[in-house]
């Protein structure tokens, strides 16, 4: 039953027209993902009119491809500019950006898109077989379970942060405070707006991230006395091939990331905790935990696999 459906699905998806649409979608999506302020959801919304003249299956393929492309585009900015486009690419910056700084941006990007592919494929296959059972489990998830997951995620931030745990905690609290500005979605009261209408909508994630990561990075570069050079990634088939030869070594990270992503992903809001947890697990189980955060390939593989496994599992 499950196998037949999966086979039928691949058969439809691999028709030349649909495959062509997937390529177009991924290309458009990547461009959208790289543009600051435009994420997967906006991209899908903007390009929705394109699909009106298509058969429904092809339209879904195009939109999904745009969405995945945008996710990958987010990984590009995380790695090359240290500006995560989505909450779940934050963990990718930890090791992706140091790698790009060392001139290994090509490897980091290859690892990112390969892990995205592995994670997504894994969870799509699993969800085909287990969707009915998982739907039942997901429905049983209530506020206590969600709270437990979030608590675990934020605790792992403090564990990961390195340096001063008090400062990590302060950053988390500040983030929560910024997030609680605006309309309280439960009671409808205005929180922390102090009568300013501009604050009613609260702080947008993208804006906060560009301010904190982007401007911080520019100022740091100036302090270190360098002119801002961005980082150049040399992408050619050789780099991709070389990286693919190394990647199988991290098969444990792939499997772990896929399972964490899948497990966290079939309930809403799972991709971000999944990426952080996968990163923390990879660091914990690694033989060289001290290399994490300084540009370790595994540190790109772990969060990307989990985030995309979560993205694929969330129906």
């Amino acid at each position: 039953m499950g196998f037949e459906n999966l086979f039928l699905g691949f058969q439809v998806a691999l028709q030349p027209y649909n495959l062509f649409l997937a390529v177009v979608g991924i290309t458009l999506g990547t461009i959208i993902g790289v543009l600051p302020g435009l994420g997967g959801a906006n991209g899908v919304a903007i390009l929705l009119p394109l699909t009106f003249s298509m058969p429904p299956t092809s339209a879904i393929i195009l939109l999904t491809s745009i969405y995945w492309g945008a996710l990958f585009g987010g990984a590009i900015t995380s790695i090359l500019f240290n500006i995560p486009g989505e909450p779940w690419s934050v963990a990718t910056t930890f090791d992706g950006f140091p790698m790009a700084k060392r001139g290994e941006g090509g490897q980091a990007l290859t690892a990112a898109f390969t892990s995205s592919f592995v994670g997504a494929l894994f969870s799509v296959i699993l969800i085909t077989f287990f969707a009915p059972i998982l739907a039942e489990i997901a429905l049983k998830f209530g506020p206590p379970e969600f709270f437990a997951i979030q608590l675990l995620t934020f605790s792992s931030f403090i564990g990961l942060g390195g340096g001063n745990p008090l400062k990590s905690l302060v950053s988390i609290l500040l983030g929560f405070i910024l997030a609680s500005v605006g309309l309280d979605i439960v009671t409808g009261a205005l929180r922390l707006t102090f009568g300013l209408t501009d604050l009613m909508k609260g702080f947008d994630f993208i804006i906060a991230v560009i301010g904190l990561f982007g401007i911080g990075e520019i100022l740091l570069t100036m302090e270190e006395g360098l002119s801002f050079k961005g980082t150049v990634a040399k992408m050619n088939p050789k780099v991709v091939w070389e990286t693919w030869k190394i990647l199988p070594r991290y098969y444990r990270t792939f499997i772990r990331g896929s399972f964490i992503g899948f497990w966290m992903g079939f309930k809403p809001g799972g991709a971000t905790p999944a990426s952080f947890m996968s990163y923390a697990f990879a660091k914990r189980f690694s033989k060289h935990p001290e290399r994490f955060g300084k540009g370790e390939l595994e540190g790109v593989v772990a969060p990307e696999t989990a985030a995309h496994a979560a993205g694929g599992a969330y129906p």
Partner: protein
Amino acid sequence: MRAADLTTAAVLAAVGVLVLWDALRLGIGWSTDGPKSGFFPFWLAVVLLACCLGITAQALRRAGGVPFVARQAIGPVLKVLWPATAAVLLMQFVGLYVASTLYMGFYMRWIGRHSWPAVVGMSVGFSVVTFLLFEKWFLVPMPKGPVETWFGY
């Protein structure tokens, strides 16, 4: 580092007090339908204040030592920071596009020392392209000022 830690802790503690004040206005207890709006911000602010006290104590116990930013490094950092701040302030009055034209032009001329034609071409061209991109094609409204009104937007 010590002075920087103390200053940051003080600023964040001030933020904490601000949040605390607004949370008290909203009510921090429980009403019939669950926690009131100020409940979550209140406890965030309380823990934030406690952490700031902790960081202050840590910083005080430590000797002065390494400065947070070297004297010769602060110049370039400020050179980036103040034009950006000025551009953001300017944006409130003249809109995003005019402010970014001025910012880019100023920066290219002052730091980059490019020739005037390059400065004008690049800054005006960039703003026109972003204007078309956001206002025309993506239909994302950005802050606009008198100049855009004059052109009929």
